C-alpha cells in the first residue's frame, strides 16, 4: 500500500474526512491551526462545510447545531481555546450530541506557551465544564494513530452519543511520519433523534434544561449508566514488556514513545522496566494498571505536566504499590533524562 508523509494534524484531519466528517467549525490557535487549514483546502473540493467561527464559543455551538442536525462534525483547538469551548462541551454532553473535539495541546495556565504539554489532562478527563459528565478522551502516540483514532473517535461518538476528544501534544500535531490512508467509512449510524425537520414524524426536541429535580436526577443517572457502560467496554491501553517488569512506566502520547526508547536503554543495564500506554485517557485503563500491579514493584507516571495522570494511576493501584512521578512542562523530557530517572529509581529501590 502506498504511504503518504503526513503531519499529525493533517493525518487527523484526513482521518476525519475518511470517517465521513463533512463539517468543521473552528477558530485559529497554534499549534492546531493546520487542521483548520487542511479542511479549508479540502472541503471545497469534496463538498463539505468549513467555517471559521468568530470565536471558540461560536465554533463549539456551531458544532452543537451541526451535530443536532445529524452530521459528523469536528472542531479543533488548543488549551486556551478548549477552555472557552467548555460551555458548549457541557451542553453537548447533556444533549448527547456526538462530535469530535481535538485538543492539540500546549502549555498553560493562561496563555502559557505554544510548546507541547499534557497539562490539560485534568480538564479533558474530568469533564472540563459544569455538571456531572465525562467525554471520551483518546490519546494517539503517532501520526498513523492520529488518522486511525480520528476515525475511531467518530464511531465511538455516534455509538454512545457522546462528544469524543482527541488529545495530542503539539509535537504530534506538527511532526511527520508515513501514513497508510484508511478506507472511507461507508456505513453510518441512524440518528432518528436528530432535528432535521419533522416531516412524517413527531417533532424532535434537543434540550438540556430540566427544571424538575426528579427529571434532572434521572438525566444524570442515565448519563452515569452510559459512562459505566463505556468504562466496561472501551478502556484501551498498550503494554510493552510489563510481564517481568519491576518498574512500570505509565505514559501516553509522545511521552510513551520517549519512554520506549528509555526502556530499551535501561533494560540493557539490567533493570526490568515496562510500559503501560493509556490510549483512552477517559475511561482510564485502570484494569490494566491494576493487573500489572500484581507483579510490578513501583510505577512511574511520566508526563509533560506537573503531575496529573499520577492521580489516576494511584486510584488504580489503590495503595498496593508506590507511584512515583517525573514530568516537565513545555519541554519534552528526552530519553536520556528519563533513563537517568529510571536508573535512579532502580538504585533507590534496590532493583539493580
Amino acid at each position, binding site marked *: 500500500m502506498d*504511504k*503518504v*508523509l*503526513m*503531519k499529525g494534524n*493533517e493525518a487527523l484531519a*484526513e482521518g476525519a474526512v475518511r470517517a465521513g466528517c463533512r463539517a468543521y467549525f473552528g477558530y485559529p490557535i*497554534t*499549534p492546531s*491551526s*493546520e487542521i483548520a487549514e487542511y479542511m479549508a*483546502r479540502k472541503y471545497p473540493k469534496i463538498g463539505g462545510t468549513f467555517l471559521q467561527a468568530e470565536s471558540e464559543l461560536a465554533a463549539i455551538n456551531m458544532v452543537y447545531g451541526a451535530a443536532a442536525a445529524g452530521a459528523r462534525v469536528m472542531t479543533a483547538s488548543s488549551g486556551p481555546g478548549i477552555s472557552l469551548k467548555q460551555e458548549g462541551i457541557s451542553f453537548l454532553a447533556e444533549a448527547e450530541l456526538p462530535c469530535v473535539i481535538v485538543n492539540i495541546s500546549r502549555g498553560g495556565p493562561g496563555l502559557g*506557551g*505554544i*510548546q507541547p504539554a499534557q497539562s490539560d489532562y485534568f480538564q479533558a478527563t474530568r469533564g472540563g465544564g459544569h455538571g456531572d459528565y465525562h467525554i471520551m478522551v483518546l490519546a494517539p502516540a503517532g501520526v498513523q494513530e492520529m488518522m486511525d483514532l480520528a476515525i475511531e473517535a467518530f464511531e465511538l461518538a455516534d455509538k454512545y452519543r457522546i462528544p469524543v476528544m482527541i488529545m495530542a501534544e*503539539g*509535537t504530534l*500535531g*506538527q*511532526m*511527520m*511520519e*508515513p501514513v497508510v490512508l484508511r478506507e472511507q467509512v461507508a456505513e453510518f449510524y441512524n440518528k432518528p433523534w436528530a432535528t432535521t425537520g419533522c416531516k412524517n414524524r413527531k417533532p424532535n426536541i434537543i434540550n438540556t434544561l430540566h427544571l424538575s429535580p426528579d427529571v434532572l436526577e434521572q438525566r444524570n443517572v442515565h448519563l452515569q449508566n452510559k459512562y459505566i457502560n463505556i468504562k466496561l467496554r472501551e478502556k484501551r491501553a498498550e503494554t510493552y514488556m510489563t510481564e517481568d517488569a519491576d518498574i512500570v512506566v505509565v505514559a501516553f502520547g*509522545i511521552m510513551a*514513545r*520517549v519512554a*520506549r*526508547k528509555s526502556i530499551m536503554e535501561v533494560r540493557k543495564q539490567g533493570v526490568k522496566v515496562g510500559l503501560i500506554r493509556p490510549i483512552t485517557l477517559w475511561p482510564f485503563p485502570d484494569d490494566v494498571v491494576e493487573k500489572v500491579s500484581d507483579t510490578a514493584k513501583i510505577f512511574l507516571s511520566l508526563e509533560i505536566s506537573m503531575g496529573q495522570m499520577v492521580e489516576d494511576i494511584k486510584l488504580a493501584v489503590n495503595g498496593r504499590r508506590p507511584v512515583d512521578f517525573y514530568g516537565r512542562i513545555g519541554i*519534552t523530557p*528526552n*530519553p536520556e533524562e528519563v533513563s537517568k530517572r529510571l536508573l535512579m529509581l532502580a538504585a533507590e529501590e534496590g532493583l539493580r
Partner: protein
Amino acid sequence: MRKQVCEGISLASLSIYAGGYGSGKTEVALNFALEKAAGAGEVVLADLDFVNPYFVSREVKADIEQKGIKLIAPSGEFFLGDVPNVPAEIIGFLRQDNDMLLDLAGDEIGALMLGYLSRYVALRPNYDLYLVLNPYRPFAMDLHSIKELKVLLEDTANLKFTGIISNPNLVEETDIDVIRKGHQKVLSFAKSFGIPVKYLTVEERFYDQLFPEYRAMLKKLKLYLRPDWLQ
C-alpha cells in the same frame, strides 16, 4: 570587513527555500548552509518560519553557530513564539556580500515573508529561488496541486522559481525504491513547468548507492531536527 553588494562584481550567493508545508525546506537549508560553511566565507542562515515554530532551525542554533553559520531568527521571548517578528538585521545582511540562505515557512503564508523582502532580494546580482518538493506529501502528489502551489507561491513572493529541489522521502520508511519513484514524479512535474531540477536530496544512508545514478545532482542530508525517539 564587510563589503556592500555592487552589481556585477559579487560572488555572493543567495538561496531561498520555499515550498509546501513539511516539504523538507528547513532540513535542506540547514544541510546546504553547513556544506557552505565548511568552505570559506561568511554563511548566513535566516530562519523565517514564524508560522508554526516546531522543528525549526533555531532549535539547533548553538550547534550550527559553532560550525560557522550566523543564524538570523527571532530572539529572546520570540525564540519559540508564534509572533511574527522579522529580525531587522536581515535587511542589512541581504545587502552585504555574503553567502545567504533563507528558509521560509510553508505554503503561501511562508512566501509572504519573501514578498516583503523581494525588493532587497532583487538588489542581489544573482539568487536561487528553490521549490522544495516531496511528492509523498499531501497536496504535492499531483501536478494540479503542485501547479496551484507554485503559482500561489510565486504570486505571493513576487519572484519566480529558478530551480526545484527534489526531496522524495518517507523519513524512517524511505528506501531506494521510494526515492527513485518519487524523484521520477518530481522530474515529470519539473518538465511541465520548464524549471530544472537542481538537486536530489537523500538521507546520507542512501548516498553511496545512488551516487553513480545521479552524480553531481545528488546531495546528502543529515536530519538535524528529527527527535531520536521517533525510530
